[in-house]
């Protein structure tokens, strides 16, 4: 928050903030407000010039500095922060209620108490207009995996697991050092250092077939970094192939489900898209399943391979009748 529109809310919040924390260090306060200490000092200098009409010595906001710490000597009547706006109450309360719904995320009792207290303090600013349902569907196996994973995270232990990699359609054994769990777009993930891949990986909990907590500490290397999920989970890489597809109306969901680029609307609800893929066998499985609802325009080799694979599948299914 450094842009100029954020300044007035900060100025109005600063005096009550300091009243609640007499003698706080300037850099600590700056960190809480998310601004550099230099900016916070400018704000304090400005507030010092403000006060009640008359603007004499007893009317101005009075701050006392001692070394690197600040206290409020006179607040000119600004002792409490401004109430929450409807938008602020919404963003906070909807988020808290969402936590309640996520399996095993937070202490539900603490969340409910926080919601009640904030609602009471916010008064008429009630949340409106936004609702969130994570809708996490958790089968029995997934719930069991989640409990083991959470236990290992809390204990700081490594995990051994049997994991299904959808892109390669392969099941493998891995030992991983858990870092955290995420819920993104209604799915739960374990973020961990994979010792086999020697990299940070996101593992979908519903693709963990078996998992055991090990009696050894989780030790992700210090350079293992958390994944930034703000732009989605799919990472573009230079070695990705790109296919150009025409999707029939019944296959438009592909453009909503997978990251696509250069989307062109065609007649009758058809859509031309370019789609990146890391693994050709995965792409072939997706496209085969779409049947006649997709046309592969590029690359030619992908289109040929797809047709060839479909023909072999038909021929094998045709053998069903002759092999009892």
């Amino acid at each position, binding site marked *: 928050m450094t842009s100029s529109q954020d300044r007035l809310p900060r100025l109005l919040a600063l005096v009550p903030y300091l009243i609640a924390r007499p003698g706080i260090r300037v850099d600590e306060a700056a960190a809480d407000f998310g601004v550099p200490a230099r900016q916070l000092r400018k704000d304090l200098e400005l507030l010092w010039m403000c006060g009640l009409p008359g603007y004499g010595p007893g009317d101005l906001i009075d701050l006392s500095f001692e070394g690197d710490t600040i206290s409020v000597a006179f607040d000119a009547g600004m002792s409490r922060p401004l109430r929450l706006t409807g938008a602020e109450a919404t*963003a906070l309360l909807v988020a808290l209620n969402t936590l309640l719904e996520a399996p095993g995320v937070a202490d539900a009792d603490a969340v409910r108490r926080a919601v009640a207290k904030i609602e009471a303090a916010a008064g008429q600013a009630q949340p409106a207009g936004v609702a969130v349902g994570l809708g996490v569907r958790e089968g029995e196996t997934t719930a069991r995996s989640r409990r083991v994973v959470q236990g290992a995270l809390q204990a700081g232990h490594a995990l051994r697991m049997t994991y299904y990699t959808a892109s390669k359609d392969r099941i493998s054994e891995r030992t991983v050092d858990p870092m955290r769990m995420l819920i993104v777009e209604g799915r739960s993930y374990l973020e961990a250092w994979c010792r086999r891949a020697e990299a940070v990986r996101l593992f979908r909990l519903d693709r963990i077939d078996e998992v055991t907590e090990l009696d050894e500490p989780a030790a992700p290397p210090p350079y293992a970094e958390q994944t930034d999920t703000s732009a989605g989970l799919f990472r573009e890489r230079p070695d990705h192939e790109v296919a150009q597809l025409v999707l029939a109306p019944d296959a438009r969901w592909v453009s909503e489900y997978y990251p696509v680029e250069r989307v062109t609307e065609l007649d009758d609800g058809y859509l031309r898209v370019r789609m990146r893929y890391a693994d050709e066998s995965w792409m072939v499985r997706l496209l085969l399943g779409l049947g006649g609802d997709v046309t592969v325009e590029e690359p030619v080799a992908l289109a040929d391979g797809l047709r060839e694979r479909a023909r072999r599948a038909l021929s094998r299914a045709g053998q069903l009748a002759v092999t009892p």
Partner: protein
Amino acid sequence: MSVARAERLVNLVLCLLSTRQYLPAERIRAIVAGYADAPSDEAFHRMFERDKNELRDLGIPLEFGSNRTIDAEDGYRIARRDYELGDIDLEPDEAAAVALAVRLWDSPELTGAAAGALLKLRAAGVDVDQGVPAVVEPKVRTTEPAFGPLLAAVQAGRAVRFDYRRPSPAELRTRTLEPWGVVSWRGRWYVVGHDRDRAAPRCFRLSRIVGEVRAFGRPGVVRRPPGVDLLEFVSTSTGEPPDTTTVRLWVARNRAAGLRRRATVVGGRTIDDVPGDVIELELHHPDSAAGWIAGYGEDAVVLEPEVLRKTVHERLLAAAGGAR
């Protein structure tokens, strides 16, 4: 915002908070530091209008009214009880829940609003440590360009118009909606409201909105009827049939791991001179499952039911010959 303006606005807030009388604009001009700089009446009024709007945008309850005296002129004040956030004190576990909730959003609109709420809670004396890592981090993203304008329309109580593309049957049509709220369900955003063309409540997927969302009409006209549960409306409108079907497939030995991990092997069989297993699995969505199974090409052959065998056959046929 210039230093002079920020200073003037803080002075205005302090002055209006400290008065019980409604202060006429001219009186404010005379006593609040900063307005004396206005070179003319017109310049003052322009300045004062902007300042009032700025305060209202921040959610400051600026009151306009008249004092109960004979020659009273209408004026302004801020009612302290409406301005101030109520008392609030959070236990450490409640504050931890708030810290996690603020991190839920990956959205310019909601992240900003949640940060604003956090700023005020801190100013009220609540300590919220955002550096504490969480065991599970749920994330809710808003990437659809329609999100911001729709949320703004909901919060302002205005009707909207937008072009909406329905995939099947394919059509692109302009919709007129009285929006009640925006809803995230399983990672996808919807807008719920009263569809004026159909004269009925409807929900629309944000990713299918084409072009701009235009708000029109006076603010405050649209109100959500009491008793509407936004989330329930979306989750039941997009619900899926709970039926499950048991299907039997042949899969080639050591192939189709994705199918196998959900299935039980019930026997062995050789088709087309290829050894394999007969497996059984429970399907929840036979339609999308046909695509999933067809994707495995020659590695999977449907044995029963007949209707699934046919659907898969048709998809493969289209993929093999049809297009180009």
